[in-house]
């Protein structure tokens, strides 16, 4: 059974997920959704890391993912706090309304 499922399958899935997230970041205007898409990208990287760890038989990648999850939690907490503060100030969470430069 082993050997059928190689690392490249995981990496392909991870890179596709990463690009989906990236596309979301580029296309979406809602800051909330952009944050979510960033989380998607982060998770794609997590998947790749775990796959690397599993295929190299080493714990490091998994531990790194562990830290990534920790940091992501902190990041989301702060990001959402900023978002709520922004919303209270500007009554909008759409990027084009938050832009103070240009236009």
């Amino acid at each position, binding site marked *: 059974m082993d050997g059928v499922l190689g690392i490249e399958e995981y990496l392909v899935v991870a890179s596709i997920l990463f690009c989906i997230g990236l596309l979301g*970041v580029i296309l979406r205007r809602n800051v909330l959704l952009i944050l979510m898409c960033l989380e998607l990208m982060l998770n794609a990287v997590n998947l790749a890391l775990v796959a690397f760890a599993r295929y190299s038989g080493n714990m490091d990648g998994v531990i790194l993912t562990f830290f990534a999850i920790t940091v992501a939690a902190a990041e989301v907490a702060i990001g959402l706090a900023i978002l709520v503060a922004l919303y209270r100030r500007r009554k909008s969470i759409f990027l084009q309304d938050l832009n103070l*430069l240009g236009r």
Partner: protein
Amino acid sequence: MSDLIAAILLVPLCSAALILFFFRRDADTAAKLSVGASAVAMVLALFALFQNIEIDAARISWLKLGDFELSFGFLLNGDARLLLFVVTFVGFWIHVFSLGYMRDDPGKARFFGGLSVFMFSMLGIVVADNLAMLFVFWELVGFSSYLLIAHYFHTDEARAASKKALVINRLGDIGFLLGIVLTQVRFNTLEFAELEQAALAQPELLTAGLGFLLICGFVAKSAQFPLHVWLPDAMAGPTPVSALIHAATMVAAGIYLLVRIDFLLVQEVFSLIALLGGAMALYAGFCALVQRDVKKVLAYSTLSQLGYMSATVAIGMSGLAMFHLATHAFFKALLFLGAGSVILGCHHEQDVFRMGGLRKRMPWTSWTFLLGVLAISGVTFTSGFFSKDAMLLAAYEENLPVFVMFLVGALLTALYMGRLHWLIFHGESRSKAARQASESGLTIIAPLVALALLAVLGGFVSLWPESLSSVFVQELEHVHESTGNRLVMTFGALAWILGLWGSWNLYARTRDEDPLMKKAPVFFRLCESKLFFDEVYDFCIRRPLRHVAKVFEALELLFISGLMVRGTAGIVALLGLATSAVHRGGLRVYALWFVVGLVVLLGYALAWWEF
């Protein structure tokens, strides 16, 4: 006892600082603080003078550049002691006078702050023991006089006058600074004591050029020819300022400088100063004769008296100059304060032809002013008589042309001062303001009385304490022993009697216009034009300079403002415009660029792997 001197110096400074930082809104406190500070300074100065203390050699290093070292120290010899007394004493009474004069002024706190700064810088000049320190305080005096002249900064006149004073003083100070630098280069020291020794040891180092440079400062500060034009204009300041600056202290600083550095000056310089001084005594007298503004009359009178002093210094009798400086400080301050009292009484009316008949309404002012007039005219046994007589004697012995000029000057002095007094206090009141005038309060009368006492009695040398009179008593005795004593005294008496009598005849029953204008119109107009000095300056200096300035302005507009400032700004702005086209705060655009960068990076990495 440097500490005591330092205390005298620092008390006004502290007062100024306190007013600046804490009492700008609290004018009454500021005034009390300033007056208190000047009182403390006077008491300390009197204490220092009557204790006859010696100055130890304690010096504070201020600036050290390689071998070159600048330090602050105190030199308190005879003339410094005399001037210290004059400045603190007269300064104190002027402060007291200001309390009354400036009572309702909106800028009262600012004014008293300025007075304190001025006291500080003036005292600094008095006690300085080297040229560098003197120069620092010299500039501070210039700055504070600028502040005070511009007190009524909302009037164009005061603004222009303060600017003029500042610019002309800078002009002189440049020469002075160059002279100081040259002195340092030649003698490798700036201290008066060391300089004196060096000048005695190497007289060949003294040149006319050095002397001319050094007296530039004197010429500007003492408003001597040809830089005298600022002083009459400076009357735009409040009257106490005119009294303080233009009678007792600031203009005296020039004379004082001359006395301090007279060992550095050579004969040619002295000759020039003597000539200029004599001419000034004459010229200013003529100008004063036709002025309508009471303060301008006094200003030209000051110029004339300064001419006396500088010429006296130039003919080698600096002690007599200091003596006249002191007595002049008393009676000129008295006259200015009296004029201030009159102006206050007439609700800021300064035209003498709109006054008249004030004798009964302002008796104290009238009588003290009369004493001042007598003193300045050199009426026998007033202070002015003693000092002026001595100067006439000295001139008679040393330099006859100067003597003649002095004599005519003395006649003119009596003439215009008499004119002033008759016009103000005698005859009929010629305006509503004059008819409604009333005597001023105690804070104004007290200084008048105190200064009148000194103006009358200041000439008796025996009344002076030893430590103050030492500077001039010797020369005084010397000139009195000379042969022409009696002759000169007669001439002097003739001069004031003639002057006062003439003025009584001319002006005692004047109506609204100057009788001289009818009797000698050409002479009158010549005097009124002040010999076209302002016009000549305007034509010879201001207009050509304006053209030069226009050229420079064009250059600046083109190169500095245009090419360098706007040009660099333009380049930056262009760059900014270019970059801001990408950088518009669009988060998604940033992300896109990020991805593009990622693609490039990955592509590069991939290609690198395949190679």
